[in-house]
């Protein structure tokens, strides 16, 4: 069943969405079947959260708020997982 989900989270990582956090974010996003995007404002423009080129290309600095939107059978879980990842500052889940 297709769901859609949204959520937002503050980037607290010291350097923003640099290579290593971006790799973790895209790796996690790819484990979901839903289409997942984020924007730096609730109106977009939207960035494909599964593409390292796009995620790095967003050049998201520390202190920015990421607005996620997802569509697909696991949209809710996807948004929750990505927000969790950012909230624990990209560290592995304990």
């Amino acid at each position, binding site marked *: 069943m297709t769901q859609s989900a949204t959520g937002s989270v503050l980037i607290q990582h010291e350097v923003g969405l640099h290579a290593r956090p971006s790799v973790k974010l895209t*790796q996690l996003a790819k484990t979901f079947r839903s289409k997942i995007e984020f924007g730096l404002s609730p109106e977009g423009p939207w960035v*494909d959260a599964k593409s*390292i080129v796009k995620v790095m290309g967003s050049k998201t600095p520390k202190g920015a708020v990421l607005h996620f939107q997802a569509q697909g059978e696991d949209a809710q879980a996807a948004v929750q997982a990505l927000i969790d990842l950012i909230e624990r500052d990209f560290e592995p889940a304990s």
Partner: protein
Amino acid sequence: MTRLVGTPAAPGMASGPLVRLEGGARTLRNASSPAAEREAIEAAIASAQEALALLCDQAGDEEAAGILAFQLALLEDDEIVRPTYQSIDNAQPADRAWQRVMDALIEDYQKSEQPYFRERVTDLCDLRDRVLDALHGGAEQSIPAGAIVLAEDFAPSRFLAVDWTGGGLVLRNGGTTGHVAILARSRGVPMLVGVDLERVVASGEALLDAHEGLLVFEPDVAEREEFERRRAAYAEQARADSRQLSVEARMSGGERVRVMINVAQPEELDGIDPQHVDGIGLVRTEFLFHGRDRLPGEEEQYHVYRRIAEWANGRPVTIRTLDAGGDKPIPGLTRGHESNPFLGVRGVRLSLHHPGVLMVQLRALVRVALHGNIKIMVPMVTLPDELAQCRAMLAQAVRDLRISGVPAQAPALARAVAVLPRLRLRGLMAIPEATDDPALQRRRFESLRELKDRLVAEGIPLDTLSMGMSDDLEAAIAAGATMVRVGTAIFGARPRVPTTAG
């Protein structure tokens, strides 16, 4: 124009056929069918992925692994793969399709306001070239033995793969202190740099005089005779010089001077007689990284250092821990684009940022100290604490090696016993700690077997390996035991004897 001048980078004289190498540019692919080009790029990306995944596993520290993971993620990204396929479907060859996509991304990063993104350009170029190399299959123009090679530039790893007997090297770029020049000098390969190759129209025979800095094309008889006359004179001079080599160095007042050599590549030792030197004053270990982006493992380092130590045959050998950074960047290890890299994170400062890398090197050095007179030099120390940290890590390496069962003193003891006239050393015996872990049992037994093999290779004829008891004899036999102890299996466990004080 039959003569060109250049700067001598390595002395010597050579005559032979000219071989001109294409100026570093890769041979481009011809587009076959889009289907075939798709297949080619798929295979190249897969091989790059495999290589990167392997590097990632072996990186040994988080920093390098993180950089490699970034490259891996890029290879899996549709944003890169899709436009590459689109170009291929529009009849582009795979290499140009890939390069176009990557170059666009690289340009985007280069233009970034933020230094962080500009610094990632190195990674992107690295990735671009890795896939291009896979596409081109690394096919390089072959160089016949004895040729005089003309090229824009030359890679050290390639230099070592060529048979230079009778030949020489002429470069447009490169300096007299570059790695290739150092190699050329140590191997006696005549070499010139800074030669204006665009003015070379001739082919066929040439004469290279790397004493005078001259390259002569299509020589006439008089030029040939003159060349041979000078070659004979230099050869005579070289013979006279070589007689000095075995003379002990002394000041006019009789004071002995120790003459030590520097080693930047282990291959340099091939042409040097250890009798002519008093030791090695400095072994630079950066060569371990040349031509690759993998951090070499402990075993590999150990074998390289050991070869050097054995060459020196008891003479002192000072080995410097990795001195990367500054003018010696190493991808995946040093930081890109520091505002002043010469004063930046380099030498011991870099090593202490990557303690995992330093520890591997220290362990290899501790192990090799059993085979020679090894001293360790720590580069670029500015604070006493840096040296203290290195000392602590060295002590830790010694402790760890002891616990891990590499018997540090055993080889020296075996050698001492083996020379005693009325004793015959038959073998080695070990009782490792009791454990139910078969992998650990096996490791311990194998390390004893390796020690025995090493001693046998040294000429100590051991035939016995006594290891393994009732509970661990299977692992011991698998590792090569010739004698096991099975008392417990036959008679049962003995009652514990109470220990008494005193």
